[in-house]
C-alpha cells in the first residue's frame, strides 16, 4: 500500500482545505475587524491600527471583566474538581450500601429538572444573587462529569484498594495518594471541561449578576452584541470615534487569548475524554 495519489486524494485534500478555510476564516475576520478603524475589513493597510486595543485596555471595563472571568473560572474549576472527586470516589465502591440508590438519584437529574424558574427562585431565596456564589455553587457537581470520573475510578483494579486497606491506609489517604494520581488524565479532561464551561458561560452570570463590576467577559460581550444586533436590524445607526465593531472584536480577541494558550492541552485531553466517554456509552 505505497502512496500513490489518485483523484480521490486530490478531491479529498481540496475538500478538507475548504473545511479548514471555513473554520479559520471567521477567526481571521475577527482579528482583522478588531484592528480596523472602520469596523469592516478592507485591503488597504492604512485602515488598520491598534486604537481599539489601546482604548479597551485603558478603560477599566474590559480588564476588570477579564479579571472576574479568571477568578470565576479558577474557583469554579477547582471547586468542581474537588467536589466531583470526593463524590465519585465512594460511588465507585461497588460494595457501598445505598450506592445504587444514590447513582439513580444523580442520573435522574440528567433527564429531568425543575426548569429555570424554580432554581432561580431558590438561588434568590438563598441570598446568592449578585455574588460569585450564584454562578459557581449551584452548578459545581455536574452529573455527566461525575459519572465519567466514577467510571474511571471503577476501572482502577480493586486490588489496589484492598492492598492499601491492609496496610491500614484510610479512605482519604487511598483517594489522595492512589486514586487521584492514577486518574490524573481524566481529572485534566474534567478540569478543561469545567474551565471551558465557566470561561464561556454567559446566561448564568447574566441571570444572577446585576452589578456591572462583577460581570465576566462574556456578559460584556453579550451587551456589545445586543447593541450591534440593534444596529444591523436598522434600529439605530450611531457614529462613534472608534467603530463599535472594532471594540467588540478586540474584546473577543482578548477573550480568546487564554483559550489559544491552553489549546495544546485542550486538544490532548478533549480527545482522550471523548474516547473514555465513547467506551462508556
Amino acid at each position: 500500500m505505497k502512496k500513490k495519489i489518485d483523484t480521490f486524494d486530490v478531491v479529498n485534500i481540496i475538500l478538507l482545505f475548504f473545511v479548514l478555510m471555513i473554520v479559520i476564516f471567521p477567526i481571521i475576520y475577527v482579528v482583522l475587524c478588531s484592528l480596523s478603524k472602520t469596523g469592516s475589513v478592507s485591503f488597504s493597510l492604512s485602515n488598520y491600527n491598534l486604537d481599539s486595543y489601546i482604548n479597551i485596555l485603558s478603560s477599566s471595563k474590559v480588564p476588570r471583566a477579564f479579571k472576574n472571568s479568571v477568578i470565576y473560572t479558577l474557583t469554579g474549576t477547582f471547586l468542581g474538581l474537588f467536589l466531583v472527586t470526593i463524590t465519585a470516589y465512594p460511588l465507585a465502591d461497588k460494595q457501598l450500601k445505598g450506592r445504587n440508590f444514590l447513582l439513580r438519584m444523580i442520573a435522574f437529574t440528567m433527564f429531568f429538572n425543575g426548569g429555570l424558574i424554580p432554581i432561580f427562585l431558590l438561588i434568590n431565596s438563598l441570598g446568592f444573587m449578585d455574588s460569585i456564589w450564584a454562578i459557581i455553587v449551584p452548578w459545581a457537581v455536574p452529573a455527566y462529569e461525575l459519572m465519567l470520573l466514577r467510571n474511571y475510578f471503577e476501572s482502577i483494579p480493586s486490588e489496589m484498594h484492598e492492598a492499601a486497606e491492609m496496610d491500614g491506609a484510610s479512605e482519604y489517604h487511598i483517594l489522595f495518594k492512589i486514586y487521584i494520581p492514577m486518574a490524573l488524565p481524566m481529572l485534566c479532561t474534567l478540569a478543561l471541561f469545567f474551565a471551558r464551561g465557566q470561561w464561556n458561560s454567559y446566561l448564568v452570570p447574566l441571570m444572577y449578576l446585576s452589578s456591572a463590576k462583577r460581570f465576566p467577559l462574556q456578559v460584556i460581550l453579550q451587551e456589545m452584541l445586543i447593541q450591534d444586533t440593534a444596529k444591523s436590524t436598522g434600529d439605530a445607526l450611531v457614529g462613534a470615534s472608534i467603530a463599535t465593531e472594532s471594540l467588540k472584536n478586540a474584546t473577543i480577541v482578548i477573550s480568546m487569548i487564554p483559550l489559544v494558550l491552553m489549546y495544546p492541552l485542550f486538544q490532548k485531553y478533549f480527545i482522550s475524554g471523548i474516547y473514555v466517554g465513547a467506551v462508556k456509552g
Partner: protein
Amino acid sequence: MNVLKSTKKSNFLSYLKKKRQMYILLIPGILHYLIFRYIPMGGIIVAFKDYDIYKGILKSPWIGMENFTAFISSPDFWMLIKNTVLLGTYTLLFTFPAPIIFAILLNELRFKRYKKLVQTVSIFPAMISMVVICSMAVDMLSPNKGIINAVIKFFGGNPIYFMAEPKWFRTIYVITEAWAVFGFNAIIYLSALTNVDTSLYDAASIDGCGRVKKIIHVTIPGILPMICTMFILNIGNIFKIGPDKVILLYNPITYPVADIFGSFVYRKGLVESDYSYAAAAGLFESVVAFVFVITANKLSKHFAENSLW
C-alpha cells in the same frame, strides 16, 4: 426475635463505622444534589400557584391548573411547539451528518501532517463561546459592514438584513451550530473508525473495489452501530434545545420563528417577572423533553442489542 434484630442493628452500625469515611466524603455532593436539583423539582409547585415575591413559594395562593390552561390556550403555545420542534429537527438534520462525513474524509487522508493540522483546527470552534460565535455571525451578516453583504453588493444585489428577516433565523442558527460542533463531534466517529477491521479493506481491494466503494461497503457499515446510537440519542435531545443561542440571535422581529420554550420561559420569567406562568411553560417543556429522552434511550438499548450481533 429481639436478639436477631439487635445483631442486625449492630451489624449495620459496625458497617457504618467501617465505611464511615466513604459516607463522609459523600455528604457535600449529595447535599448539593438535594439542594440544587431536588428542591427545585419540588419548587415546580410554583407553577400551580399565583406566585407573590413577598409571600414566597409556600405561602402564595394555590390556583390549580390555571397557569397551564392559560398557557396551552394562548397562541404562544403552538408557536413554541412548532418552533422548538422545527429548530431541533433542522439542527439535528444538518449538524448530525457533518461530523460523520468529515470524520470519513479525514480518515481517508493519507498525509499524516495535513491530517493532524485539519483535526487540530477543526476542534478549535468547540472552545469558543456561544456569544463569540453569534457575534461573528452578526458581524459577517451585517448589512452595511459585513462581508457577506459586501459580496452581494459587489454582484449588484441589494443588502439583506439577515438578522431582521424571520426567514433567515433558522438557517443562521443551524449553520453557526454546525460550525461550532462538527470537529468536536467528529472525534467519537474517528475513534470508531480506528476499530474497523482492516482486513475487510484488503478483501474489498481484492474484489476490485475503489476508494469510494470501500467507503460505502466497508467504512460506513463499520461505524453504522455508532451512527445509529448517536442518532437516536440526538432525537431524544430535539426538545431539549437550550435557550442560550436563541437569546443571542433573536430580536422582536424574529420572535415568531425564533422563540422556543427555553427562551420563552427566560423572557416571561426573568425579564417580565411572570414567574408562575413561566414555570408552567417550563414544566411542560421538561415533561415533554423527559418523554423524548426516555423513549430515545429505550430505543437505543433495543437497537444496540440488535445491531451488535
